[in-house]
């Protein structure tokens, strides 16, 4: 369990992290969201014991970071931003070095190294120097070193940054498989990633916590949550749609003629709308319920703070 109380970090006269408090329990997969420079990386650097906080306290597994950072670091696997690694070593040498420092020995070390190499699919580059690897492989080497000791807590700073869609998918699968009874914290500014892998989303901007709940709750904050989008095949009189019970507002896109109906509260408009269409024999070529547009929510929340 991670418990953070009133965490603050000040660089000179710049407040990077401002009075953050939260608790993370085993099984939580937390997505750290926020614009660039919001304090995500700084928070992670403090959680991993790299930076000392200016004030506030971090306790992990009932140990204080200040007093027993080395014991805490044994439980954490960390992928720093940009996945730094020793370029002059090859992949096997690098992983072996990390395994040695993590105190893995003999058979166990061998087994773990084979396992992570298989998990992140590094087989084809084992003997290549890290500095000659592509961005995707470098990131995977970084992931491999973070999970080599099977840590209870995995902290990944932008794990999918710069990866192609296939690689992103692999990394997400890996995180999903990993997470069962452990803690995973990932930072990202890709919102779909949070809905894909996390069961908890935290939005940070200007060092402050703006939102901390499930990704579904985040979607609910969107104006588009459960809104109905539809498009008629022919030109149709749509004025009746706005009068339907439960419809709060209607928007028509002038360019493509797409109609969006916003519900009052959390009402499900689908039955009413589909009945309306059926009754009048209208022809519709698209009709669906929106899940909520995270980008909008994100922009709305963070712009208020940074403006």
């Amino acid at each position, binding site marked *: 369990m991670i418990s953070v109380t009133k965490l603050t970090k000040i*660089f000179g006269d710049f407040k990077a992290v401002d009075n953050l408090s939260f608790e993370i329990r085993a099984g939580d997969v937390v997505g750290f969201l926020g614009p660039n420079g919001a304090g995500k990386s700084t928070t992670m*650097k403090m959680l*991993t*014991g*790299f*930076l000392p906080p200016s004030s506030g306290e971090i306790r992990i597994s009932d140990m204080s970071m200040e007093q027993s950072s*080395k*014991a805490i*670091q*044994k439980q*954490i696997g*960390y992928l*720093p*931003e*940009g996945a*730094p*690694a*020793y*370029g*002059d*070593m090859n992949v096997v*040498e690098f992983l072996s*070095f*990390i395994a*040695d*420092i*993590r*105190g893995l020995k003999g058979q166990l070390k061998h087994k773990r190294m084979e396992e992570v190499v298989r998990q992140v699919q590094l087989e084809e580059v084992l003997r290549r*120097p890290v500095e000659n690897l592509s961005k995707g492989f470098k990131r995977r080497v970084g992931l491999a*070193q973070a999970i080599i000791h099977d840590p209870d807590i995995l902290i990944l700073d932008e794990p999918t940054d710069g990866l192609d869609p296939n690689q992103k998918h692999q990394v997400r699968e890996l995180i999903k498989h990993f997470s069962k009874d452990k803690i995973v914290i990932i930072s990202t500014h890709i919102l779909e990633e949070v809905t894909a892998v996390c069961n908890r989303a935290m939005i940070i901007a200007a060092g402050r916590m703006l939102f901390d709940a499930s990704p579904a709750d985040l979607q609910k904050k969107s104006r588009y949550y459960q809104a109905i989008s539809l498009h008629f095949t022919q030109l149709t009189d749509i004025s009746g749609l706005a009068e339907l019970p439960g419809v709060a507002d209607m928007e028509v896109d002038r360019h493509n003629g797409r109609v969006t109906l916003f519900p009052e509260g959390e009402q499900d408009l689908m039955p009413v709308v589909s009945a309306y269409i059926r009754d009048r024999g209208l022809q519709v070529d698209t009709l669906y319920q929106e899940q909520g547009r995270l980008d909008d929510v994100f922009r709305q929340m963070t712009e208020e703070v940074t403006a």
Partner: protein
Amino acid sequence: MGNVLTIFRREFLSFFATPVAYVFILIFLMLSGVFSFYIGNLYERGQADLLPFFNFHPWLYLFLVPAIAMRSWSEERKSGTIELLMTLPVSIFEIMLGKFLAAWLVLGLSLALTFPLWLTVNYLGSPDNGIIVAAYLGSWLMAGAFLAIGICMSALTKSQVVAFILAVVVCFIFVLSGSSIVLDAFTGWLSPLLLDTLASLSFLTHFESMAKGVIALDDVGYFVIVIGIWLYAGLLAVEQKKAE
């Protein structure tokens, strides 16, 4: 201690994974040969010892040791690996010690590879080999002091070039403070006590007797303390500057 060994091994191998160690050893051997024969007149003196060889070591180290020390922390900070390293369960002290020992061994290896010179004087005459061994050890110890300064300077900056220049300047001060140029300049208006203190801070003063094969406890102690102080200063610098 296991961690020190792990760090040591990584650092040592990395010297040889890149051309750094090879170039260093080659240049060291060439320069020490040139200095001993052309400037030190090893042959012409007609004496079976290696004094001309050892006498040039402080000046050789002045430029070569900072070159091997400059990457130790600068590169970690530049490439961001410092964040990786310092979030692993290993202390800065262990990292520092591992780094120092690895570079020190490279220096020791370079020294050891000058053995043809030793064979030469043994072929030409019958030198006191005890003196030569003692001088080798003394030289290695002094190299460690240069190295500790270099590593500390490397901890201060992300730029290897800046680290190199700073290290050369600081080492230069330490070498020169015992030379006749500096001491003569101060003679007369500095009290003899202060003058002695100044001279006693110099690498030259402490290496002088070692080069002649005299291993005195205070000389050894001096270099060990210098190494300790500079590595500790480096430790503080890393702690302070790691986030920048």
